[in-house]
């Protein structure tokens, strides 16, 4: 695309002639040329015009020259696509591939676009585990400068992973390391998900997963020397060998804080540090300590602070000393917080997760915390927070880009247990009207009960950090072997959740419910009379939780203590106190063995009258394994029916471990446990027969199999009862499984 004869710097033309255009009309070409007849122009203008014409993507070649008084623009047009056809693809269907292509009918075809399309299809194939696929294209000419484009695909076969082995792993077993990285060996279960597929990106992710695992278990010098893979033609599978250099296990020797900011009293800051001398090195603790220190310092007014950890290794006795360096960071302020991408979630639902406001000092740690809190909301596929320069050198604009996902879930769940089959249909909207409120409607039915619930929760009631909720429910419990009456309960309630600190929370609630008892067996009618009972109760409870993760805890404690008072009107007057404490401790960190101790208890006392038997605690196998449903506690001597009790205590101890002999990636875990407890004291209603109460602690020991299979979590408990009362009913095997799918 040359330039005309070397004319003077400033030239003038009287007109622009356009040549070579068959389809694009001359007027369009002229509109992109910056040169105006009669006005002077320079070479730069010509270059700009050429660039503009190319920019339209309509032309494969552009040439501007000066012929006498005319500016001559010669163009060669790109061809137009008449049709796009894809051949040879079996595993991936046409419309999935067509979506990736830029070359489309009625659009323009260029070499660059075709190469781009091939590359995008290749990447898509390798992400589906077929990196051996090859793709070619043919362009056939038609009349009127039109072409047909055909992509020919040879998919190759699935590149799966055969064997994964490790060299140099002394500290951790091969199966433990395999469970850390997620590209596991191909097996019947991995058929159901894509984890066993091989590609380079996943290999890099695996190495990072290994590094983080070792660095959080004391191996500060850990390195992956190499990750070699080779392709076995016969089985069509890759085998991967990770060669590791674990280095030594480090413990903290000394921990100190070194601040260059005057007036920072380092002594008061030590309590924010999780890395304690003598303990095993853990990179997560170091990161947590940096965050805690930064927040504490910013709360104390040292806002422009940067905390950086420095580790000094003592190779002789494998210790590492950590020094937290505190020094003055740049004095930058947040000018604006721009929230983008929220087409459904309201602006304030996102903005309120930020501890800092516009005009406050810029603090990276607080922004990371907001990003984490936004992700925990579960409303977004992705949350990206970046900073852009503001209107002054010491001002930045924080840009929050969210990509929403549909938070409306319609799910069907099923569960089977020794008491029968239970199924549940639920409609869940976690981000109702984009206000961050949670609406849930669920219908459950099983062999011995049906329940219907509607619940609505607002996590920021009236703008305060208070969660408020309202529930309505109807539960029908049919007559069964262990329950000699049918109970219909219709109820509703309101609840408030008040966070005191990050871990401690106070919950207040009020419920109003009416229980209708019918079809009671004549023999137990005295204990369980037919009738209608209205209960109006208010209650509170404190929960304190430091569990590392709620679903599958390995560390931490959970404590719940509370009381309910029934008698604000209604027919029933009692005070019910209950408490539960659970403590989890990883016993052998590298073998993933976890110990759990649980203690729970409850007591009901009538307020000026007897406690109706319906409101007693009815306990069985779910608290002390080895007993049937409602299986232990006081009984009506005449009929042997269990009538529950006013007071109970229960204690359980359990050790969970990977199931020996089966690699963890099958999801099997074993457990041994010991349970003990007692249920006693009944207010015998007038006219009812005597109560049989053995002054006897119930206890049992046993083992369990836990299986988190792709179709759900299953648990089977085998228990041997050590001590029981004669009237108790044993049930040595309990089984439950369930999954929302």
């Amino acid at each position, binding site marked *: 695309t040359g330039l005309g004869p070397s004319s003077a710097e400033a030239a003038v033309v009287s007109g622009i002639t356009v040549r070579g255009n*068959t*389809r*694009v*009309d001359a*007027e*369009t070409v*002229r*509109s*992109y040329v910056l040169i105006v007849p009669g006005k002077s122009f320079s070479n730069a203008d010509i270059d700009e015009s050429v660039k503009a014409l190319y920019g*339209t*993507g*309509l032309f494969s070649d552009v040439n501007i020259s000066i012929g006498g008084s005319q500016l001559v623009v010669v163009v060669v047009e790109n061809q*137009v696509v*008449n*049709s*796009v*056809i894809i051949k040879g693809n079996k595993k991936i269907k*046409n419309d999935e591939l067509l979506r990736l292509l830029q070359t489309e*009918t*009625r*659009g323009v075809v260029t070499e660059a676009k075709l190469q781009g399309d091939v590359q995008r299809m290749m990447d898509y194939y390798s992400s589906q585990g077929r990196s051996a696929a090859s793709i070619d294209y043919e362009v056939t000419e038609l009349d*009127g400068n*039109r072409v*047909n484009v055909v992509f020919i695909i040879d998919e190759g076969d699935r590149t799966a992973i055969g064997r994964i082995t490790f060299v140099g792993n002394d500290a951790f077993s091969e199966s433990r390391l395999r469970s850390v990285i997620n590209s596991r060996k191909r097996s019947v279960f991995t058929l159901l998900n894509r984890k066993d597929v091989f590609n380079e990106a996943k290999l890099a992710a695996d190495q990072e997963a290994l590094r983080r695992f070792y660095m959080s278990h004391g191996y500060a010098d850990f390195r992956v020397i190499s990750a070699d893979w080779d392709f076995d033609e016969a089985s069509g599978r890759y085998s991967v060998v990770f060669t590791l250099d674990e280095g030594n296990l480090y413990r903290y020797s000394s921990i100190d804080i070194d601040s260059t900011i005057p007036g920072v009293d380092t002594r008061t800051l030590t309590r924010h540090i999780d890395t304690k001398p003598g303990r095993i090195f853990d990179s997560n603790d170091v990161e947590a300590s940096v965050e805690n220190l930064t927040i504490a310092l910013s709360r104390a007014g040292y806002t422009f602070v940067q905390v950086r950890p420095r580790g000094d290794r003592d190779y002789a006795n494998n210790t590492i000393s950590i020094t937290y360096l505190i020094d003055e960071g740049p004095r930058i302020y947040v*000018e*604006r917080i721009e*929230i*983008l*991408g*929220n*087409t*459904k*979630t*309201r*602006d*304030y639902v996102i*903005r309120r997760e930020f501890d800092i*406001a*516009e*005009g*406050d000092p810029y603090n990276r740690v607080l922004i990371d915390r907001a990003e984490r809190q936004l992700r925990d909301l579960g409303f977004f596929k992705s949350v990206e927070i970046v900073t852009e320069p503001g209107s002054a050198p010491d001002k930045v604009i924080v840009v929050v880009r969210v990509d929403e996902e549909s938070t409306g879930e319609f799910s069907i769940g099923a569960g089977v247990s020794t008491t029968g089959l239970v199924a549940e249909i639920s409609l869940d909207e976690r981000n109702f009207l*984009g206000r961050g409120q949670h609406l849930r409607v669920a219908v459950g039915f099983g062999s011995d009960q049906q329940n219907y619930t509607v619940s609505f929760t607002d996590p920021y009631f009236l*703008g305060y950090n208070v969660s408020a909720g309202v529930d309505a429910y109807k539960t029908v419990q049919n007559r069964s072997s262990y329950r000699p009456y049918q109970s219909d309960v219709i109820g509703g309630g309101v609840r408030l959740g008040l966070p005191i600190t990050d871990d401690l929370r106070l919950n207040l609630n009020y419920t109003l419910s009416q229980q209708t008892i019918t079809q009671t067996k004549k023999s137990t009618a005295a204990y369980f009379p037919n009738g209608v009972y209205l209960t109006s109760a208010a209650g509170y409870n404190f929960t304190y939780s430091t569990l590392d993760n709620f679903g599958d805890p390995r560390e931490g404690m959970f404590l719940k203590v509370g009381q309910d008072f029934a008698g604000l009107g209604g027919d029933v007057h009692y005070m019910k106190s209950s408490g539960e404490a659970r403590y989890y401790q990883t016993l052998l960190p590298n073998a993933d063995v976890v110990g759990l101790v649980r203690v729970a208890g409850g007591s009901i006392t009538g307020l000026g009258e007897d406690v109706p038997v319906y409101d007693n605690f009815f306990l069985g196998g779910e608290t002390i394994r080895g007993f049937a449903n409602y299986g232990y506690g006081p009984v009506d001597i005449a009929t042997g029916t269990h009538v529950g009790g006013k007071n109970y205590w229960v204690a359980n101890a359990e050790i969970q471990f990977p199931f020996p002999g089966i690699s963890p990636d099958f999801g099997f875990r074993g457990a041994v446990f010991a349970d003990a407890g007692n249920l006693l004291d009944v207010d015998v209603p007038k006219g009812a027969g005597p109560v049989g109460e053995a002054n006897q602690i119930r206890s049992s020991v046993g083992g369990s199999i836990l299986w988190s299979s792709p179709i759900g979590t299953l648990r089977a408990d085998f228990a041997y009862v050590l001590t029981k009362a004669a009237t108790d009913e044993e049930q040595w095997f309990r089984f439950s499984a369930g999954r929302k799918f």
Partner: protein
Amino acid sequence: CQHSVEGTAAAYEDEQPAGSLYNRGLGYMNAGKYGDAIKSFNEVDRQHPYTEWARKSMVMSAFASYRSGDFDTAVQACNRYLTLYPGSSEAAYAQYILGQSYFAQVKDVTRDQAATRRALAAMEEITVRYPDSEYAADARKKVIATRDQLAGKEMQVGRYYLERREYVAAVNRFDSVVTEYPETRHVEEALERLVEANLALGLVREAQTAAAVLGHNFPNSQWYKDAYQLLQKKGISPQDNGGAISEAAIVGTS
């Protein structure tokens, strides 16, 4: 007869005269069958690219997509048209459909205003490039509406911070409405909020000036009455400190 959509080789042999395909498209349009109309117009474009008919059918296909609510396709078709025929007679119409497609997706002020910004840019393009086209009048109305919406967004965030007594954030947000969107309805409330925020900060002089500017430009606005009462309660009278902005900024445009 109806042609199957691209993808099968057979369809390409029996080409149809552009005119009749185009008219069939119009027929479907009038019958409200936008899906069929779009197919016919696209056929014209595919079989007879870059003819007069193809150009007309491209913009009609965009209009059909817009009417059927498929705004993304409409926007795509408009952009392709404007790249090919920026100077043609229907360019203004294509630009207008583009603006309308974005305008239809404008969300309320508690959501991201990306669609509003794009609608504003598209409509402003009409007022600048095709000032005397038949769409210019409505475009100017849409410019006012979208700018008002963007000002509304600033106000919503400003009020969020004001409620939380984050005065710096609030003042700057209301300031941006006064300086960037002086011609919108929100400027009255922005000035009143500036009176409130500055009073809460103890900057009485600023509060007085804001009230004076409000009174000067919008003497009988309810917001001015509120501001006046607020100052009255605190024993302060709104008096103008000869602020430059008070004279030029708002009086000129209201």
